[in-house]
């Protein structure tokens, strides 16, 4: 595949459309062509930011209340309910204010994705948190996650990237749903967290780091962590494996076409 051919197919690659052979050919080309790898990275980053802007959440509960009532799905709520709502909210706010004053003002904690990932990996490996869905099939794991998270997930990295999947599940990270994959690189246990990309807003240091670099390495307790954004996802790979091996895994995420 030439540079021109690879770049012509950027749309299909970016969107995980097209057939598996095309994706493998592009992967092969990118592995041996730093100029195209950089070009793909810049294009994908720009596309990701545009999509992020366009898809910014939009939700007006009053609008939905009226629309659902008008459509006959829900009965309209009596106006008096607002007085109760305001009263209850005001009382709750007052109670929280008093508790806040009594406890003193605590400094705001900034979450660290490395800590979160290391803790989760520990819990999975120690068995403190059983893997929700045990399977060594990439397809079964992909199908399981797609039915359970409200954001797009891709096929997990496969054995050709050095990752052998053993299971998957869903959890919350900073109040947002996240998918996880449990598996190994060689004999070393490795976990992968897949978050919706906008979840990175809760992790400013990692978000800012990723804006500078396409892939971010960082220590995570006793483990190594590699972080990357891909399409609508932020992908974290964590474990005791060598960082280059973890980077191969993180780069393989999303490089396989969807099965559905």
């Amino acid at each position, binding site marked *: 595949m030439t540079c021109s051919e690879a*770049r*012509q197919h*950027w*749309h299909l690659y970016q*969107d995980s*459309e097209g057939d598996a052979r095309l994706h493998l050919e592009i992967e092969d080309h990118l592995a041996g062509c730093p100029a195209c790898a950089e*070009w793909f990275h*810049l*294009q994908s*980053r*720009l*596309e990701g*930011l*545009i*999509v992020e*802007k*366009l*898809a*910014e*959440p*939009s*939700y*007006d509960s009053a*609008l*939905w209340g*009226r*629309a*659902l009532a*008008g*459509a*006959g*799905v*829900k009965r309209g709520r009596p106006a008096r309910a607002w007085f109760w709502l305001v009263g209850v909210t005001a009382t709750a706010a007052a109670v929280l204010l008093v508790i806040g004053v009594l406890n003193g003002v605590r400094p705001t904690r900034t979450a660290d994705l490395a800590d979160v990932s290391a803790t989760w990996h520990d819990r999975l490996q120690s068995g403190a948190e059983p893997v929700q869905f045990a399977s060594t099939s990439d397809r079964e794991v992909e199908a399981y996650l797609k039915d359970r998270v*409200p*954001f*797009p997930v891709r096929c997990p990295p496969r054995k050709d990237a050095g990752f052998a999947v053993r299971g998957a599940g869903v959890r919350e990270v900073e109040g947002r749903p996240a998918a996880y994959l449990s598996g190994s690189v060689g004999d070393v246990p490795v976990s992968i967290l897949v978050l919706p990309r906008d979840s990175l807003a809760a992790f400013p240091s990692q978000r800012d780091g990723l*804006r500078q670099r396409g892939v971010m390495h960082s220590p995570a307790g006793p483990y190594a962590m590699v972080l990357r954004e891909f399409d*609508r996802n932020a992908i974290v790979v964590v474990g005791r494996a060598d960082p280059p091996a973890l980077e191969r895994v993180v780069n393989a995420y999303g490089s396989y076409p*969807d099965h*559905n």
Partner: protein
Amino acid sequence: MREDKAERFLEHLKPLQRKLEGYCRRMAYSADAVPDVLQGALANAYRDFDLYAEGTNFPAWMFGYLHREIQNANRRLRKHAVGEPVDVAIPDAWHPPHELPIHRLLLEAPEVVLDRCDADLAGGVRGLRHLERSVLLLHAVGEFKYREIAEILEVPIGSVMSALARARQNVREHLASLAPAADSTQKRGG
């Protein structure tokens, strides 16, 4: 029975509400039309919910109703011509002029441009042709695959691919034209 139907409908609808509203707000030609469009789409979908087959693609099914309602509202407003989609079996090859300095700034520091250009991005999307805008937003906001978008819009998949490529190109060109202003603002601001 009615309660059960409403409950099941809401259960399917709940995870989609933000996406549906986002799509509606970006697609409707007038912000004033959004409440009526949303209500109309919900009323039609709820009426036909008995025909929906459990286990099939509810998001695509629901977006189809919303899209048709938006299309009707935009037609009524007569502010935006709705052209017939043109099928292009082979997607257009796309080579953005990435060597130009103006595009390099957009590619290398996109946040500099995008952070200052929220309204302009919305304007750029609004300036797209109907099919391009629909495809771009169904892909970005609805997170649909090409095949699903083709089903929602009832157009061939080739049209989806070429419209998406054109939409991306047009939005980037629009943003690139704003890049020098964003650059000078950044330099002034340090």
